[in-house]
């Protein structure tokens, strides 16, 4: 229960959803393996991972479309495994939107309320409210096939929110939108979540999206949780080489602990921030490209300085990504912001350069 305590100490909020040693197999393939996870009330929680990692299965278990092979799932303290999908107080926004093609926009949005004998007037009122919330006023009478992709996405959102679910599940909700619209919608989703205070659980394979929208991210691989933490922690303090490598760009240097604050590597001794490295243990130093500085001359007074040759340059507009060949033949990734308006890249392929970084720039990993 370490995760729970950690979480409670941070926000003080009680967990709304709890997975307790949940496993699920499809034939011989394990989609989810003895997984334990808490999601807090009012959180915007992201499940992130490569395709086939089990994140969608986890989401569908909350909705009730998959039953765990083992383990229990609690919602607000109640075991919901035996509850069929239509009796669960959670709603889902589907990746395909799953809008009913034979109903109008209003018919789709009102569908959930119609299942509960809500009065006609209240339905009309709440549908109008929802149309306003997702900015689709005046489109209530349209058929689904008369809407654009972005409009459909908002109908799906309104439909899944109208019952005021305790949890809103979002399965790759923005995957079908183009890049610009996706970026706008991400901010709209965050605003909406703050306004409603509903717990949102989003499944995505887009790490940038997860980092932008979520309070906490669960990084999954092969049915297991690799790390559950805030976006900053996931990026700045990954707990393993796998997470460090999966999120963003990184250079990983293998080394061996050699006294306090030092590890020995193929590139020589490197200064690290951690003091108690434990002698002789194999460790890995993960370096984010933007934390390494590059200069033509050897920088005076820097702790970790290494010589290299520029091997590749990738121009990305706001910054350039360099790969620098080091003395032992390995490559280090370095990114430099292009602050200079019409400047050419300051370095060319083949240039001899010096790289340096402060001891606390690297992340020391033991697994």
């Amino acid at each position: 229960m370490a995760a729970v305590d950690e979480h409670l100490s941070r926000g003080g909020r009680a967990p709304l959803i709890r997975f307790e040693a949940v496993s699920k197999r499809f034939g011989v393939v394990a989609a989810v393996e003895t997984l334990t996870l808490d999601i807090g009330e009012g959180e915007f929680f992201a499940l992130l991972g490569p395709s086939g990692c089990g994140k969608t299965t986890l989401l569908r278990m909350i909705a009730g479309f998959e039953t765990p092979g083992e383990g229990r799932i609690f919602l607000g303290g109640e075991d919901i495994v035996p509850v069929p999908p239509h009796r669960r107080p959670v709603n889902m926004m589907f990746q395909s939107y799953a809008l009913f093609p034979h109903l109008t926009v209003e018919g789709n949005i009102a569908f959930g309320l119609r299942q509960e004998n809500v009065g006609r007037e209240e339905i009309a009122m709440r549908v109008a409210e929802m149309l306003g919330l997702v900015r689709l006023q005046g489109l209530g009478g349209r058929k689904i096939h008369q809407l654009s992709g972005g409009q459909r996405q908002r109908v799906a959102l309104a439909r899944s929110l109208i019952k005021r679910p305790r949890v809103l599940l979002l399965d790759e909700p923005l995957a079908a939108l183009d890049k610009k619209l996706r970026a706008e919608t991400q901010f709209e989703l965050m605003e909406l979540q703050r306004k409603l205070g509903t717990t949102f659980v989003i499944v995505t394979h887009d790490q940038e999206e997860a980092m932008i929208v979520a309070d906490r991210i669960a990084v999954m691989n092969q049915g297991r949780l690799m790390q559950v933490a805030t976006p900053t922690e996931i990026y700045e303090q990954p707990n393993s080489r796998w997470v460090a490598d999966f999120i963003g760009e990184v250079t990983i240097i293998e080394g061996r602990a050699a006294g306090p604050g030092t590890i020995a590597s193929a590139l020589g001794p490197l200064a690290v921030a951690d003091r108690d490295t434990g002698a002789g243990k194999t460790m890995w130093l993960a370096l984010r490209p933007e934390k390494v500085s590059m200069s033509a001359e050897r920088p005076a007074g820097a702790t970790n300085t290494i010589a290299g040759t520029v091997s590749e340059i990738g121009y990305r507009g706001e910054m350039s990504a360099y790969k620098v060949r080091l003395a032992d033949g390995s490559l280090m990734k370095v990114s430099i912001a292009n602050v200079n308006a019409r400047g050419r890249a300051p370095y060319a392929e083949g240039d001899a350069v010096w790289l340096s970084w402060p001891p606390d720039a690297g992340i020391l990993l033991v697994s």
Partner: protein
Amino acid sequence: MKRGPSPFNLVSVALGFAFLYLPIVILVIYSFNASRLVTVWGGWSLVWYRELLNDEAILSAAWITIRVAVLSASAATVLGTLAAVSLTRMGRFRGRLLFSGMVYAPLVMPEVITGLSLLLLFVALNVDRGFWTVVIAHTTLTTCFVTVIVQSRLIGFDRSLEEAAMDLGCPPLKTFMTITLPLIAPAIAAGWMLAFSLSLDDLVIASFTTGPGATTLPIRIYSEVRLGVKPEINAICTIMIAVVALVTVVSSLITRRDASQQKQAALGAQV
């Protein structure tokens, strides 16, 4: 395929359709022939249609056939739809392999075998053969066709639509009624019409399973045709072709509207 048809493609399609339609066109034209001799064109006339109206035997056979077809097609539509739902929505169940075997086998089973086996069943059960045994036999035969049509629609159906309905609080049976059924309705209608026309068409199975007082139109036509070509038969055939053509055109208009809506939906998704 995007590349246009070559002359060879055009000729083969044209010849193919000529082969399919020429005999029917000839049959229709000769039903309006005033002469009794097929080779002699005696001018346009409705004489054989008038003759038909006075032929009690043909008319009563036609009436029986239509009743059999409506009843068996309706029963087959219910059973076939249930079978399709079982095969696509019920996951695994005991005896599923045998079930799907029984569903697909009648599609290719020679009619003489199906007919004979059904007759022997009725004899073994000591059931008097007649109208109802033909209805049962045709239901058995056409259920499988309905199943295949509905099943292919259910497979092409976005499963998350049903999940969305349940997610919004709709119980499974109501989900089937309010979401699944309206969306597969065109396939069910097409299945009914196919079952109807198969029943209308069947000679062999009806011959085995019928009894006194339940002579269907194909049985009647068959016994007439064995004696040679008669212009009245051309007339009744023409009427049957007209009915079937009308039904087919109407149903294809329904499904095309359905398809064009889906197409619009697909285009809309790209906007």
